[in-house]
């Protein structure tokens, strides 16, 4: 497939936003049960949620560049019964609204304690809003992943690993950003976030490599023989019906030389996983803002390459019909 930059930015940016929210909420949950110190509601959760909303908004903005008719974008909520894309279009703004609400409740301290659990744990309003928002965060990861995983003949995508990778990579990058954000505030949660970021990056490494191995060994079901229905393995294309390209030759081939294709794979494998892992480990205990910020910047850059590769690696069966110009 031809990697579209609008979709690359959409999926990576909202992944960061979702991950950052999950990080904030994880921190809050742990502080409720008093495993980690309680953070300042106003600065930490309020501003943190704002950063998450900014990332989500940039992602939403990027998605509009993918559309031929962005002014009709609202129509995309119509077919949520059958289309994962439609479901994503509904869940993304809903999630953004809930993150914003979560941030506002914290920022303006409109956070009454609703009830007390076992007379120890005080459940306040933001905790309940956060729980609903967490459900939406995971639903959004599911929708984004399923947009690709549900197309069964794009065999590189049609695997549960697609959803798992979107979730883990998004969460990892969000937790890394949360680490840098916490460090910039001198928060006591910095090492807590860094630990989670490390774990999530390691988990994503395992599942992403698993998907790469799976895709390397994939056996494509469609062949030129099934494409034109002639039972002979010796078929060569002599003409595709036109000389200078069409939508079919532009949108379904990545067009990059094999060396670039392989180079990008190794680039993302190094920048998404080992470098941030080393930087996060180095920064832990010292709360170095620069180290964590660098870890996030490098990991995000790597995720852009990861998403490029995700698209480029997928072989669309329609490409069988466009093997030779003439």
């Amino acid at each position: 497939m031809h990697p579209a930059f609008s979709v690359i930015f959409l999926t990576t940016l909202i992944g960061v936003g979702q991950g950052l929210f999950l990080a904030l909420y994880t921190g809050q949950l742990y502080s409720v049960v008093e495993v980690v110190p309680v953070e300042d509601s106003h600065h930490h959760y309020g501003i943190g949620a704002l950063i998450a909303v900014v990332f989500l908004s940039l992602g939403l903005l990027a998605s509009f560049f993918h559309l031929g008719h962005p002014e009709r974008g609202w129509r995309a909520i119509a077919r949520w019964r059958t289309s994962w894309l439609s479901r994503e279009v509904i869940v993304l703004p809903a999630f953004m609204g809930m993150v914003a609400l979560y941030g506002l409740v914290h920022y303006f301290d409109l956070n009454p304690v609703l009830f007390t659990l076992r007379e120890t744990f005080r459940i306040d309003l933001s905790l309940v809003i956060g729980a609903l928002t967490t459900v939406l965060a995971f639903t959004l990861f599911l929708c984004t992943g399923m947009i690709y995983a549900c197309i069964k003949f794009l065999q590189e995508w049609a695997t549960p690993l697609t959803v798992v990778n979107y979730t883990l990579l998004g969460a990892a990058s969000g937790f890394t950003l949360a680490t840098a954000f916490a460090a910039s505030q001198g928060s006591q949660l910095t090492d807590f976030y860094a630990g989670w970021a490390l774990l999530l990056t390691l988990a994503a490494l395992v599942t992403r490599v698993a998907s790469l191995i799976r895709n390397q060994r994939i056996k494509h079901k469609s062949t030129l023989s099934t494409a034109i229905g002639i039972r002979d393995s010796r078929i060569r294309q002599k003409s595709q019906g036109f000389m200078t390209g069409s939508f079919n030759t532009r949108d379904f081939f990545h067009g990059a030389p094999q060396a670039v294709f392989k180079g990008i794979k190794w680039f993302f494998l190094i920048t998404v996983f080992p470098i941030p892992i080393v930087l996060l480990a180095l920064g832990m205990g010292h709360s170095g803002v620069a180290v964590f910020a660098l870890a996030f910047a490098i990991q995000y850059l790597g995720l852009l390459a990861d998403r490029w590769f995700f698209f480029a690696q997928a072989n669309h069966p329609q490409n069988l019909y466009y093997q030779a110009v003439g």
Partner: protein
Amino acid sequence: MTQLALVIDLNVCVGCHACVTSCKEWNTSGSAGSLSDMNPFSRDPTGTFFNRVQTFEVGEFPNTETVHFPKSCLHCEDPPCVPVCPTGASYKREADGIVLVDYDKCIGCKYCAWACPYGVREIDEHQKVMKKCTLCVDRIYDTALPEKERKPACVLACPTSARLFGDVNDPESEVAEAIRERGGYQLMPEWGTRPANHYLPRSKTRITIHDDELTRVDNPLNKERQLPMPDKDAPTLDDFTSW
């Protein structure tokens, strides 16, 4: 249930592209707007087409054959492009099974093109909406046309009658009969899309001649032909009957 479709006879398709040009001509002049082209008269011309004819070579030299292969939307009975559409712009008609795009609802997200394994949907670079074969829905029901012209433009243009049009679910129809009796098949059956369009395979006309058909052992002429002269030293009847 009615399912209109094309049946394409690969046995007689000569690859002349008349279906391509007639399709483009009819559909670029339609009420839905033109099928636009980019740089039509300069370097790298490109444009939107509903129908393409491709050419493949099968076998190994010198035993090869050339297959001309027209490809357009197959109007699948279970079209994978329809459920993925977020707006409902892409739909399959209940009445006649034609898969269509509502150009006023399409947001141009191209997701349906990703979800079509056959690559028959093309974005119109000017109108920014997805386009595809409509089976000439604006002419097959047009009562202003004589009845024999109420067929898709490609079917009317084909000089070898390689394209048949009709209801594939009506067992009495010409297309259903062709599929049934001449081995009509579907493309990429492995994805369960159940394309309505079918292709008729190439078939060679062969006759089998056995050796005994060339030289008959019981040839009646053998009775009348001149017998060879007997050898000079061979005994003759005279040797026994002379007295």
